[in-house]
């Protein structure tokens, strides 16, 4: 019987990381400014990774929230007409409500949601840019 393999690394064994020379002057020159955050992003450090995860999560949450608005606003219509057929018989300007909602109203509604998304998504990106360029604030 083979001995159970101990998954925890032996502290004495060399780790997989290559050794690197640290020149203190270079580290100091990097400073604490935007360059450092930038490096953290590109080098995939824990901080950099957390920043990107935050951005992705914010953008996804925004997209999902707006899809929910569309799903309820438009996607609810077939159900509404199926449950309450009387709603379909309502007339506005001599036209039945379903024709107005689907034939005309749906398009400005979709464009409006799209416009709101572009604004909010760009704001998220601006926040992210600010965070990277002025991390101490």
């Amino acid at each position: 019987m083979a001995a159970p393999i101990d998954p925890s690394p032996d502290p004495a064994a060399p780790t997989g990381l290559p050794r690197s020379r640290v020149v203190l002057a270079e580290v100091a020159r990097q400073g604490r400014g935007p360059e450092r955050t930038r490096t953290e992003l590109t080098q995939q450090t824990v901080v950099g990774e957390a920043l990107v995860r935050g951005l992705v999560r914010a953008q996804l949450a925004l997209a999902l929230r707006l899809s929910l608005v569309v799903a309820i606003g438009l996607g609810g219509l077939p159900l509404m007409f199926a449950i309450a057929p009387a709603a379909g018989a309502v007339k506005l300007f001599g036209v039945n409500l379903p024709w107005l909602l689907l034939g005309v109203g749906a398009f400005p509604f979709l464009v409006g949601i799209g416009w709101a998304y572009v604004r909010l998504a760009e704001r998220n990106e601006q926040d992210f840019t600010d965070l990277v360029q002025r991390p101490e604030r």
Partner: protein
Amino acid sequence: MANPYLVPAIVAVTLITVAIGFYGLKLARTTSDFLVASRTVSPNWNAAAIGGEYLSAASFLGIAGLILKYGVDVLWYPVGFAAGYLALLLFVAAPLRRSGAFTLPDFCEVRLGSRWLRKLATLFVIFIGWLYLVPQLQGAGLTLTTVAGGPYELGALLVGAVVTTNVALGGMRAVTFVQAFQYWLKLTALAVPVIFLAMQWQSDGRPAVTPPDGPTFRTTITVVVEEPATLTLPDGGIRAVRPGDELTFAAGDPVPAVSGAITDGPDWLLPSAAGSEDQDLFATYSLILATFLGTMGLPHVLVRFYTNPDGAAARRTTLVVLALVGMFYLLPTLYGVLGRIYTPQLLLSGQTDAVVVLLPGAALGGGLTGQLLAALVAAGAFAAFLSTSSGLLTSVAGVISTDVLGRGSVRDFRLATLVAGVVPLVLALNVSGLDVSQVVGLAFAVAASSFCPLLVLGIWWRGLTDLGAAAGILAGGGASILAVLVTVVGSPLSGWPATLIAQPAAWTVPLAFTVMVAVSMATRRRAPADVGATMLRLHAPEALRL
């Protein structure tokens, strides 16, 4: 048909298309990096080009025909076609542009680093492209037959040949300007006649769309039946008609009810009610899902995203496309509605897709105005076939030449165009009895259950693996392809199986997502090591210049 302006209008559109294409070809040869140059395309031009490419025969002819036939329930087609761009905007536009991927197979390689997944994606791009091309060629054949006479095969063959030659010579590679022109042409071709049609309707004393005694013929007319159907005559008698039968009606005669179409006023006017029509509700939701999620998987749409300067521009472009496409879709509804009044005979002949082309002549008579407007509409319809088929053919040929033939030289591209053009042409010649919009709806369903999960999960979820992606594409895409094959070549079904097969998206899309996530979780070790860097690249704003 004695309209002397029809053929010149169609010839003019074709010539202008070829001419702009050739001009673009010259441009592309002098600027070696013509792809990079097109990255400076402004959002407005780019959006018009995407709109021009997107508004296909199904949009230009099919939707009005469906509305004529089925009424309010099919308004979900235009709504879904437009809403697809919202889904594209919310989940895909900016990250896809930032990925630097040119096509869907490219995206697979960028995100998952897998060559064989790239091949699988290639197969699906080709299938979706062809499935989308067939109805374009069908529509072209139909329009030519309707306006200029001659057999259907000749029309489809002619358009297929023109488009294939044009793309093979490289003329359509300068697509931006041609297709932007074609968007505005299509919008004008529907918008201007609508004004005249509305005035005519007004001066006819506003005839009701759903008169209480049922629709009647406005003029004496002879209908040639194209598809077998059962007619319920006004006196209660039932008569079966076969293709080739000729029926003559006098002005004022009531329109007989046709099997398959909705001729009863309230059914046409109001959404299908609950109860016995559970299937209808399911089919409606399935259609919404297919169109909403399918747009992002259409190969010819995605290709154009690379021409944006950056992710923010890609977003703005998509928003403008949404507005342009939405503006366009206000119009086919009016054609379908007015078609009930002026061209009810199309319900009998089965050629409902021809309503847009025939309506101006039928409503306004054979005078100069009617003839000119009919020519304008025919020109617009032709622009629709040319731009969509060219765009599809270019994207399919591009994928075949780089991923199947392997080298991607100009000679390969031309050979690939030939292959890419001939297959759908043969298909279009052999299956002529399909609704243009239904086939396009199926193409959307396949795209929605294969590429939509791949893009959405690839862009937003770190855990996606190549095996998971492949399994999801095969499960969802495979199931929907099966549904397409059963619909196109299988025997007719009835009841729930028919609904599940005709509108498969509601079960194939969840299936694809579930399989993709489950298999990815099971093969977690295969997730690419550089996924963090890819995520940064997909989502970080360009302003940071990382």
